[in-house]
């Protein structure tokens, strides 16, 4: 009889620093039913199969997996993003085909290789600036000093948010990101702050879109807001706003985690740090390995629209399905020595960016950000040393990452 409470251990913040032994136990039953009726999918093969199964829906987080407090208002606030936009404008990550595809196509058309690669220089100077600000200190708080501010600045640049509005954006991003944590403790003040942030960013976006329509520039929002040609309508305003907010939210905490996990992992594997410093060309492989070994997104939830037979289990219609990407990344049936951090690994097909139709839109951008940041950190921080291992983690189990990462340094290289 498989243990049907393992997933609650995954959610338990006490296991945040090292959830991998629980994943190992979970993989013994590739698709395992939990006491609350959710099905956890933890082997590489089963995750892969389900990512390409048309019966899994992203439309609605099943009610059983929504945080419940017993107080309807409080519930509503705890799911602010979803509830705020569920009825009117759901972002594409929570939509199924065919609507999803139409929206995604618009985004992809604007998320060109050209535009993303064009951000490389900007990411470089942002990273250099942020590191430069730590000069004279003997410790770096990586999350606060670099991981956290970088992605927001980059997304602002991508979308075409004027630089003077960026500090405002940083505030909204912080507020909305904490609101995304399913089990975060929200007090009265933070609830209000979240709702306010959401309304503010929405109305800000509305104005910005109007401005982009009048004075289009070479940025993504201008591209998305372009009036459509005949028979080829562009996105409606509401979808535009929710897409812009999605890009901010989906590309924020995730990238923070990748950079922070990356530095943490390098500090735990000093050889790899040295190698990267000597040969920055190693970065792409190293980042792929990070996405397998310490992915920023540990799982995503879907809903089964029909009975799905898989690996000897039948997931019944309506059941929540948890795709435990991070467990698939450590599956010994797919990866040899899965618990070894080994950037030279061949055929590294991880689920760091998900897979199938919701595969991360921002993957190329995230790779650039992580690459530039990690290479610069390795090169410039002199004698970096972890101050606490494990570091304190944020409470989220899905978007899992350190809350802060103190690094002692003896200087900063030019």
């Amino acid at each position: 009889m498989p243990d049907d409470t393992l997933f609650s251990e995954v959610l338990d913040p006490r296991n945040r620093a090292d959830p991998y032994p629980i994943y190992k136990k979970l993989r013994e039953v590739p698709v395992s039913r939990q006491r609350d009726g959710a099905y956890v999918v933890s082997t590489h093969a089963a995750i892969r199969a389900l990512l390409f199964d048309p019966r899994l829906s992203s439309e609605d987080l099943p009610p059983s997996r929504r945080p419940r407090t017993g107080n309807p208002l409080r519930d509503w606030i705890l799911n602010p993003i979803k509830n705020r936009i569920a009825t009117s404008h759901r972002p594409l990550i929570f939509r199924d085909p065919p609507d999803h595809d139409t929206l995604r196509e618009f985004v992809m058309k604007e998320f060109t290789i050209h535009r993303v690669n064009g951000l490389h220089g900007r990411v470089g100077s942002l990273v250099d600036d942020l590191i430069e600000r730590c000069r004279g200190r003997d410790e770096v708080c990586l999350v606060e000093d670099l991981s956290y501010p970088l992605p927001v600045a980059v997304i602002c640049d991508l979308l075409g948010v004027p630089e003077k509005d960026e500090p405002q954006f940083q505030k909204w991003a912080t507020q909305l990101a904490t609101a995304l944590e399913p089990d975060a403790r929200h007090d009265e003040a933070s609830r209000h702050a979240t709702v306010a942030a959401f309304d503010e960013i929405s109305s800000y976006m509305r104005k910005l879109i109007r401005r982009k329509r009048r004075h289009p520039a070479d940025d993504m929002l201008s591209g998305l807001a372009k009036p459509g040609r005949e028979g080829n309508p562009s996105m409606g305003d509401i979808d535009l706003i929710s897409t812009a907010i999605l890009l901010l939210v989906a590309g924020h905490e995730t990238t923070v985690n990748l950079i922070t996990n990356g530095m943490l992992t390098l500090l735990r594997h000093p050889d790899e740090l040295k190698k990267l410093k000597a040969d920055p060309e190693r970065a792409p492989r190293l980042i792929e390995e990070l996405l397998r070994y310490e992915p920023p997104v540990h799982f995503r939830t879907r809903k089964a629209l029909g009975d799905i037979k898989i690996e000897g289990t039948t997931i019944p219609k309506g059941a929540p399905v948890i795709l435990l990407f991070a467990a698939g990344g450590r599956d010994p049936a797919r990866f040899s020595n899965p618990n070894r951090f080994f950037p030279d690994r061949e055929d590294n097909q991880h689920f760091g960016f998900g897979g199938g139709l919701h595969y991360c839109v921002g993957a190329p951008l995230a790779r650039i950000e992580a690459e530039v940041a990690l290479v610069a950190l390795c090169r410039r921080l002199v004698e970096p040393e972890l101050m606490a291992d494990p570091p304190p983690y944020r409470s989220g189990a899905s978007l899992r990452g350190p809350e802060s990462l103190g690094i002692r340094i003896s200087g900063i290289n030019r």
Partner: protein
Amino acid sequence: MSAVDDPSIVIVGASLAGLRGAEALRDSGYTGPLTIVGDEPYRPYDRPPLSKHVLAGDLRAEATELPQLTAVRAQWRLGQAAVALDRAGRTIRLADDTVLPYRSLLVTTGARARPFPGAGAGLPGVHTIRGRDDAAALRSALAEKPRRVLIVGGGLIGCEAASCCRDLGLSVTLVDPNPTPLARVLGMLVGNSVAVRMKDAGVSFRPHTHVKAFESRNGKVARARLEDGGEIEADLVIVALGAERDARWLAKAGLLADGGGLTCDAACRAMTGEGAPDPHIYAAGDIARWPNPLFGDRLRTVEHWGNAVEQARHAARNMLAGRDDQKAYAHLPAFWSSQFDVNIKAIGSTEGADKIAIVHGSRTSGRFLAVYGRAGRTVAAVSFDEARWLPAYESQIACGAPFPPILDATDQAPIDHFSPGFPAPRLASESADTTERESIHA
């Protein structure tokens, strides 16, 4: 003595299956001598681009060489056909009378284009497409802007060629005995979607049309004479009637081989006339006809790229394994084709299908995924630019799920069932080759 210690392995047929088989032997640790015999003068090359990018002029025929994924360290005997097999003496003889001994033989001689059976097949201006030279010759003929191209046969290669010719701005007529293109491969319901695309692209498709002969003017093809007496003007003809095999050198050696293939047991070993496998002779790729467990053990060839690769690897594995460790080869056929701006991907076998359902997309939009049922089971799926969910249907086909298999997808409208509309099998008198129905690249 185990095969691993054997002094020599010979592979006959230097193409996709031959190369992948050789690589697999090396990958599995075979270090002994290896000889690869091929009647074409070239190192193994890839055929799918020949009827696509090469005809379109995007890729030179010489640029199709297949990369060696593992160094095969073989002795190559290229430009030499194997002409005789002596099973008792375990030797093969080449066209130049060289005799090669073998301890283990892998036959990967594939197939060739079925020639036009009527008069005029050899006239200048009449082409087929199977090899690199065929494609190069056809490409340079097309570059000279023939006034009227006639394609005989609406199978995958005929349709791909028609698509390329239209892209080149040539006037194209395609004739087929069936009511729609691809009727034998995918049925008329799906074939009709191709007919619509052809029409939009400006191809003149003539169904129910039988060509009897080609006639010439000034020593060059000028027209096709039809069975009903009519004619079609053409200064360039592409004959795309599917494939057949020249297996005479094997039949003479007492193996079950004919134009439809070389019969093997489930472990890819060639079957002898006495009804037992020859433990020293294996086959893979387009040549091999074997009892596929996924088709209820019916003997079939699968003439697709993916099978050549997989079966060659499987045969190589069995060649190195002991007699009591011979594994059966099960394979779910799959192929792709690109034509008329659509990517077609198919999986499973439509043979004998009696039902079809459009499960995603729609025929009106031209993007859809259709599944085929046979006696209540799901047996095949085909995608026209709608391949996203194909893997899910693949696993349904592999486990023989009831038809239709998936009814609760996110993007499904209510599903209607139709008849797939396969043409009646040819009469025996019409075709000397009973494998016509099985040959998907007809």
